[in-house]
């Protein structure tokens, strides 16, 4: 539900980096969006098409690299995806702890066209 302001910010970041590198045009923006970041890729794509119009990123492709969230088992160090209503490690049964994997939300790179 915060995708609209987030998309504005993505465009601002991409535009700024494009300007720094004297881009004639920004042709692609690559985002990394963890599935537990709280942001939906589909919504960002939808907003991007609308908001990009008339900005330096108009027409740029939006590539979104999705990251599955993983828990870390404190007992056997296994990294695993949780099942609903459970945090149990599939290897040893111990409850896993949260990690930062799956919470990513950043602009990874942009592709630009220069003269």
């Amino acid at each position, binding site marked *: 539900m915060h995708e609209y302001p987030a998309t504005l910010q993505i465009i601002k*970041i991409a535009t700024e980096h*494009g300007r720094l590198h004297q881009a004639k045009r920004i042709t692609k923006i690559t985002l990394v969006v963890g599935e537990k970041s*709280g942001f939906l890729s589909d919504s960002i794509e939808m907003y991007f098409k609308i908001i990009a119009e008339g900005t330096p990123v108009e027409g740029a492709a939006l590539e979104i690299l999705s990251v599955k969230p993983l828990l870390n088992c404190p007992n056997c160090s296994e990294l695993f995806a949780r099942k609903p209503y459970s945090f149990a490690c599939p290897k040893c049964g111990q409850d896993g702890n949260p990690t930062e994997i799956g919470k990513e939300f950043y602009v*990874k*790179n942009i592709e630009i066209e220069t003269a």
Partner: protein
Amino acid sequence: MCIQEIPVEEKIYAENDRIAHDNRHFLKDRGILGVNVMGAPGAGKTSSLLQIIKGLAEQNVYVIEGDIESDIDTQTLLAQGIEAVQINTGGACHLDAPALQLAFPRLSLQQPGFLFIENVGNLVCPAEFEIGEHLKMLICSAAEGSDKPYKYPLAFEKAQVILLNKRDLKPYVGFDDSFFYKGVRALNPDAPIFEVNAKTGEGFLEVVQWFKERLGK
């Protein structure tokens, strides 16, 4: 024509996080501990704050109340002689760092003590945004059910202290203690969990003591 890939590696909320960092320093420089109070609507955030503030009687306490609309909670606090201001988000579901920064000049914030920032009632979004707090307090209630850590994990994961309010209602709502604690501990092995009743004040001595020990750290 030349196509070039430019590495960016910039967090989309870097701007918010930068302001949150400034807020944290602003408070720390004044010896004020900023507490982001999170919890679902009706969990008992304001009622719990009243009990905690009562226990911190000899300390300076400031409160920022975040709500979509109304100043009901702020009026309740002001009536108790507590220095409080209201932020109305006008629909937004959480406070962010700029909103907190804009509220600072509305409080005196001259003496060391505590600033409680009661976030918008919501078990989801407040956990996702740094505002410049030093710690997050999650207030949940037995009436919400024991499955909340499994359904809304981030709030439980991010909290440095957790209050389980309305503990007297446990038998009436079939609250499953072991399921609740197992879920919270998987997400957050270290945060103390205090079972309280904000209506009667039961269980708050320990909470107040915990906060007193945090001051100056």
